[in-house]
């Protein structure tokens, strides 16, 4: 499950294990464009495996990253390809809730953190005292495309709050004790329950405008994978009047983690293609009009799994709607590392054909002497980042092949419309769920 907030709406979109089986986005009003914002989230590591909480400026690749190496929560700040800072903030206590509070005011970034008291009878009611982790200025902003992305795995998450304002430590602390959606200032958007998966408690979805295909969700699963994206500079749904471009994410049909491991390091630089391919589908965000599209880019998280000789570069592999293959490795605009958003060659790819494209990954290993065992190369969380001018359609859009064919009404309890290739869509806007007369 992913949550996407862009300007004054927030989209909930399935991702990770349930990618491609999305219920359509749910939209929340009230997040206004501003350069000053704050957010907080409770996190509870469930294992000592690495996990991520990432703030990401997707326009120029600069990022604010909170991540775990398994023993500590780290802050990593990047300005494009350059790491500005990287240091451990606090140690991880598996099973213990940790609060991160982040405020950003132009280039000024302030981060607070706290860990819940152990052995409390009611830890959710136990006050916490925030500690200042960092307060510094970083010129990593892009004036328009300023996102926050929170990516989590191997951890529980809860109680995400967002403000269009810079909060002080006292205000953060007050909010930390308040597990509701009120407080001063009141969050623009909040999931107030500090229980795993409480994002399902989000209320008041925006159902106006042309989101007629229906936007609601019943459950956020799995609990250990969350992506939150918030952003500013856009005035949804009035993109057109502000003449600003709207970025949105398009998710894969099926969960995939591109990976390859050649076994031994090569004698000359060699690029290996992973065997996996994936297609994408949209849940109602991308208009179908080609000229409204500013760009369509390919997104993913490259990494390698030690031990062994790690790959040096990650590239995309592309098959267009006619089966034409593109696998460039000569131009760095197609290279994932260090950027995580790359251009798409060939095509051109358009909003009308991108659902027919297939995407993969390839990994370059440098030679070693003597040869060494290699580490597995990975590219995970593939997404398409589509930036467009206009309104979201509200119409789930998938490859024609997904929605074409023969379908049978499934009696007795099917709660979704299940199309081809495991595409699942919510039954659009039932007038009523269930009602009995005389009971």
């Amino acid at each position, binding site marked *: 499950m992913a949550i996407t907030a862009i300007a004054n709406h927030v989209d909930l979109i399935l991702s990770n294990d349930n990618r491609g089986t999305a219920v359509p986005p749910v939209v929340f009003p009230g997040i206004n464009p501003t350069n000053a914002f704050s957010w907080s989230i409770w996190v509870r590591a469930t294992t000592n495996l690495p996990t991520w909480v990432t703030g990401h400026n997707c326009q120029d690749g600069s990022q604010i990253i909170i991540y775990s190496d398994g023993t500590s929560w780290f802050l990593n700040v990047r300005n494009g390809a350059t790491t500005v800072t990287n240091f451990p903030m606090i140690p991880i206590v598996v099973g213990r809730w940790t609060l991160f509070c982040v405020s950003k005011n132009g280039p000024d970034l302030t981060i607070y953190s706290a860990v819940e008291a152990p052995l409390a009878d009611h830890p959710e009611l136990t006050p916490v005292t925030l500690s200042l982790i960092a307060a510094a200025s970083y010129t990593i902003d892009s004036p328009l495309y300023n996102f926050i992305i929170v990516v989590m795995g191997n951890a529980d998450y809860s109680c995400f709050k967002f403000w269009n304002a810079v909060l002080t430590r006292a205000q953060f602390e007050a909010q930390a004790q308040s597990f509701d959606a009120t407080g001063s200032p009141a969050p623009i958007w909040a999931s107030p329950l500090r229980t795993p998966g409480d994002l399902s408690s989000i209320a008041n979805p925006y159902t106006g405008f042309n989101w007629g295909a229906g936007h609601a969700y019943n459950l956020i699963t799995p609990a250990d994978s969350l992506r939150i994206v918030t952003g500013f500079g856009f005035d949804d749904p009035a993109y057109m009047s502000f003449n600003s471009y709207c970025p949105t994410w398009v998710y894969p049909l099926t969960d995939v983690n591109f990976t390859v491991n050649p076994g031994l390091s090569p004698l000359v630089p060699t690029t290996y293609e992973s065997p996996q391919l994936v297609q994408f589908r949209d849940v109602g965000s991308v208009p179908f009009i080609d000229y409204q599209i500013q760009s369509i880019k390919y997104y993913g998280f490259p990494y390698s799994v030690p031990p062994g000789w790690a790959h040096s570069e990650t590239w995309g592999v592309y098959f267009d709607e006619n089966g034409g293959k593109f696998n460039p490795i000569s131009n760095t605009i197609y290279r994932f590392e260090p950027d995580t958003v790359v251009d798409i060659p060939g095509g051109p790819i358009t909003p009308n054909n991108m659902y027919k494209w297939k995407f993969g990954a390839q990994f370059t290993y440098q030679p070693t002497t003597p040869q060494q065992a290699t580490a597995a190369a990975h590219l995970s969380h593939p997404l398409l980042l589509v930036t467009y001018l206009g309104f979201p359609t509200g119409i789930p859009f998938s490859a024609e092949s997904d929605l074409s064919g023969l379908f049978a009404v499934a009696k*007795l309890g099917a709660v979704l419309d*299940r199309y081809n290739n495991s595409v699942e869509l919510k039954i659009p806007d039932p007038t009523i769920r269930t009602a009995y007369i005389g009971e």
Partner: protein
Amino acid sequence: MPGTRDHDPLVIEEFQGWWVRGDPESAPSDHFIKADNIQYFHSGVETRDGIISYIENLPSPNTLKPIRIYNYTTQIGQSLLVLSEGGKIYHVKAGVILGPILTIAAMEDFGFVAINGRAYITPFKTYTNASGEKYQLGIQNEFLYVYLGDGTLARKAAGPPPTGAALSVVHGAGLAGNDTGLHLIAVVYETDTGFLTALGPEVFGQLVFDGTHEITVSNIPVSPNAYVKKRHLVSTKAIIDYNGDQKGYQFFFIPGGTIPDNVTTTKTGSFFDIDLISDASHLIDNFSEIPSGVALNTYHSRLVIVGEFGTTETLTGLPPGITDNRSIARVSNPGEPESISKIDGLLICPLDGNPLTNVQEFRDVLYLFKHVRTYAYSDNYDVPSTWQEEILDQGIGAPVHGIASVLDTGGVNTDFLLIVDWSGLMLFNGTYAQPEMSWKIEDFWRGLNRQEFNLLQIVNDSINKKIWITLPNPFRKMLLHADYSDGMNAKEIKWARWIFDTQVNTITLIETDRLILGAKGPVL
């Protein structure tokens, strides 16, 4: 308990469904002014059932983009015939897609009927007249096709007569009795569907029988078509004063004159005229290629096809200004669905400019439909051209898919037809019941695009007492759903709309009451 702020509590005993008639404020309190994606059960209402893929293993790329589906009942089970984009018809059997079993690029839609496990298919398309009005007719110079249900290609129904060198008939050496005199002998092909072709070859054989020797027929034509499985010899009785018109005499099947293959070219035997009983003369007048129409059905074991544009053969000699055969229904011989006489195997409805759109048997009467006309014909056990016509209704008719198929059988329910008409969903039990079944949603119904009523397809699940109807633009993501479990009348029927994220082009019921949707998405 007194009502709040002087409002009395409202007791709703039963949900009565969607109401789209007049001002929303006029909707009765037990009706919905919006009823999307819901279904009704006893004393309740709930979100409709979801849908699932009917075929697990789709081809890659997925070429199945259904425009029309029918439940095709073969002798060993049920399956689906699916017209997909590109004029390709596939046979979906046991989750496997066979075909395409028929490809006609110009085919926009097709009519279908299953007889004896075989599928009869007629391709048709939509035409537009000078006034911009759309109507459906069989494709010009296209024909009725037959499909055996085995994955092999469908072929034109009926078949061409024998051709080739003149038939040779001579006396054999063996002794055998027969009636003296001149006899004409010809050959008839029998196809794998049991169709008997017209007589051939072009020049029949002839011989003056001597009454004492057997007869040897040679040069028997061999068909180039593999679907010809047998050949039959036919003969006249002894002819006195032969006038040279070889087709001007009555032919009979020769007893023992069947050649059970498509290889043998010589046959020897003998017969007496008194043994010539089974008539074959009518075969001369049969179509070897049957013009396509828009709808097929059966009546008294006859195949009926309506909505013909015509072929080069059938469009000759028409009156000035007439360019097609839109008001002609072709009717086969009983028990021989491909045997249709060009001479008397037809019904001609009033030539009012409107094409025939549908055909249905009900209570032993054959009903032919135009958009706003209904005609009735009764079998008088003579040739169809002699059947008497009765104009039943000049204000109500049915579009090409507008008669509800019932369960997985098609056609008639126990005692009524459900017919889609411009004025509403009509209950037909010999006459059209009023008010129409769609009375509660009259405003919605009247707003439907009449030019696209050919896109409406209706199925009736008479077990669960539910109806579904596909809709024209801009409602092609929707199905109209009705529940008549409380009564099949305008007052007690309950309506709703089912909405999907794909364009639902066509529906059918299979496995008795399982609703199948043929969809092509997404909808822009």
